[in-house]
């Protein structure tokens, strides 16, 4: 089986995997990064979102052979419960979670958005999150969390 050198969260790690295996499985099973979730395997729901070179990407749609030496960032690189990233803290402050299965994708898409557009308006936020599905219906709180994370809530 081929070996791949992955640049994940600032570290280089080697994963032995089949060329067509999506990156998601390497992150979860080989690197024990449980943040990205399997939702559809079709690039339709956004639960598996990671950031690749600054852009939100669906890790379920990216085969190992296509990752190359690009920088991959998962939610684990943002923060943890001891030291939260401001986006994560904003989601907690707004209680913008129910079951939480989609939240990895919401936060990673938000991170990519705010990195390029620090003060997005409502329409821009909705567009940036249009490909992220939430079945619990937490959307309104998620919008508020993004506004809070971008310093736009009084």
């Amino acid at each position, binding site marked *: 089986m081929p070996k791949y050198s992955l640049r994940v969260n600032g570290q280089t790690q080697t994963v032995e995997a089949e060329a067509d295996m999506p990156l998601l499985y390497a992150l979860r099973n080989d690197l024990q990064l449980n943040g990205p979730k399997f939702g559809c395997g079709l690039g339709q729901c956004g639960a598996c979102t990671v950031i690749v070179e600054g852009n939100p990407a669906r890790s379920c749609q990216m085969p190992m052979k296509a990752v190359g030496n690009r920088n991959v960032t998962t939610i684990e690189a943002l923060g*943890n419960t001891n030291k939260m990233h401001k986006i994560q803290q904003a989601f907690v402050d707004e209680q913008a979670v129910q079951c939480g299965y989609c939240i990895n994708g919401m936060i990673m898409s938000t991170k990519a958005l705010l990195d390029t557009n620090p003060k997005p308006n409502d329409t821009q936020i909705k567009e940036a999150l249009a490909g992220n599905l939430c079945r619990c219906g937490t959307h309104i709180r998620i919008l508020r969390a993004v506004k809070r994370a971008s310093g736009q809530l009084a």
Partner: protein
Amino acid sequence: MKTTELTRRQFLKTTGALVVSFNLLPPSKKAWAQFAMLPSGDIDPTSLDSWLAITPDGFVTFYTSKVEIGTGTITALAQIVAEELDIPFSKIKMDSGDTSRTIEQGSTVGSRSIERAGPQVRQAAAAARQELLKLAAAQWNSPIEKLTVVDGVVSDGAKKISYGQLIGGKKFNTKITATGTGWDMKVAPEVKAKNPKDYKIVGQPIKRTDLPTKTTGEHDYIHNVRVPGMLHGRVVRPPVINTEPENIDESSVRNIPGLVKVVREGKFIGVVAKTEWSAIKAAQELKVTWAKPTSKVPATPDELFAYLKNTKPARTLKPVAKGDAASALAQGKMNYQASYRWPFQMHGMIGPSCSVADVKGDKATIWSGPQGPFRTRSTVARILKFKEQDVRIIYHEASGSYGRMSTDDGAEDAALLSRAVGAPVRVQWSREDEHGWEPKGPAQLDEAKAAVDGDGKLLAWDFADFSQPWTASGTTPLLASLQVGLKPDNPGGSNGTQGAGEIYAVANQSILCHHINWHFPEPIPLRTSNLRAPGDIARCFASECFIDEIAADLKADPVEFRMNHLASNRRAAECLKAAADKAGWQKRPSPAPAATGNVAKGRGIAVTQRANTYIATVAEVEVNKTTGEVKVKKIVCAHDCGLMINPDGVKNQVEGNLIQGVSRALYEEVMFDTHGGVTSLDWKTYPIMRFPDLPELDIVLINRLDMIALGAGEGATIPPAAAIANAIYDAVGVRLREGPFTPKRVLAGMKKA
């Protein structure tokens, strides 16, 4: 991951910061001997120690079979425990959903967890507080009435002693009463609980305990459970449930690296491999020739609803039978009749089913995310032919499930595959599996008739609901069970009876709920189960649109007309008024004066009940007259679930329910072929609400300090569909009597009008 099995005694000695990890061994009586056990091996609810334990540093672990499914139930139950014990909320640990150390309190379903388990945990906590006061009183030789508790420290005014000092690490050895089972269990009713006016923790918007880890990737979801030696399995599903595999060509997967086994048991076929990707590929590539499906279901909506209408009901429930509706219908000044259709819809978990099983000898350990851990224990024990107590279910939260995880199919899959290979196996379903095989909310036909007297009052109300029972919930065999040959011995549970107009006072009122079987006892082609507020959306859509149609015909304001029939239902009336007031409802009949432009605006209202919770919504819509597209601009909701344990938790649930309700009203319809095979197999063919289409929400929470606490996990999903349909009528004068309200249906309606 820790692998130590903690005994109760070891556990009590450890600090409160400990999180009890799951163990890897099958259950044994020895390991859990610190619990008070019944002869069956289950936990004895009449022992106070079975409910809670206190560590020397004053942390309280409370044991409950209720589970967190994303709705905040566990945080709310912890608030009740903290309140009743008078300890800080941060000192409560909820140990939830492990069948080897919790008491069966019924599944986390049906808007009943706070209503029914709330009093159970409150009374157990109150009993513990009483025992702690007795201990302090005995130690100090002072009268118990003189003692007070602040933050887990008992005081007689001079001396102080903490709960930890009183009992930390020791057992209560106290008997309490516990009669009945499941959510009907009455726990320690003899103990006096706090007066709600003294509540300090209950009623506060305490932040949910499960949220921080859910934002960081650290949350302990079932999908993240990995146990040593674990293999990965996938199930190869047939075209429809009752299809036979005629041939399995194992050479088709011979080249898959790490393939361990192709498993066949009856019609059940699975693959097990060393890696997840190999299991996925093996499942995709295994060549199975399935027999041609023989099941037949009605292929078009017209055929489906004709089937519901024309098939003899297997059972009929009569939730309301007042006066003589049939005779009164003949005496009305005005008579009305309409029928309404609601399609199959799905739960649509974002994360598909996932379970891990380790079957060794005659014992099984199952890690899974069911709403009813004890129900999963029964189904797994049945398929493995084990004693129930030889199966241990360890709960880990799954994806939000809305009733879907009442039916824990994944646990059966994992159990069969683990037994076949003699190793722990993790199974996660694909998106296609989940969309295709999750049991659906049944389609419904609702027929309403009414008569109105000369004063514009309802004289007769005759409502009939036609729906399939739940073929995959309750005690009926689940997916893998059917495939290995278990036969259903009953047609399944009822799809509910509420939302049919029972909130209105009508002298002559009949409500019938007919169960129309699929092909029972043959395996049922399209599985059905409880989908959030089961059946209520369709019934409320029918009843609340019907009453709107009558009001419109009488040129009456829709709020006023409803109010005229709610005089004897104070909570429904107040809820309706609160929603109307908040929405700035202008008194006038529907429809609105015709719009001149291409976009017509409308408003509509609906009120209903779910369990004992009342909900009213006002929808504001815009209808594009050219495209037929409906935009829901705003939903105003008034919500009365009695005493609120956590107002922000309630609000989060209400918001989620409203959005899910709008999604189900506008977009959702499961499609299937003539054999009952689902063809809505991804998020493109079964679209749900997305951010750009969000309505604005405006919510009024009614808190009732004089009432018990009721559920908030389902109710607000119900009335949006009816309110939106009424708003569409208000906007363009078109009555939609079939959901979802797609542009095609709106345009067809406008063409007819």
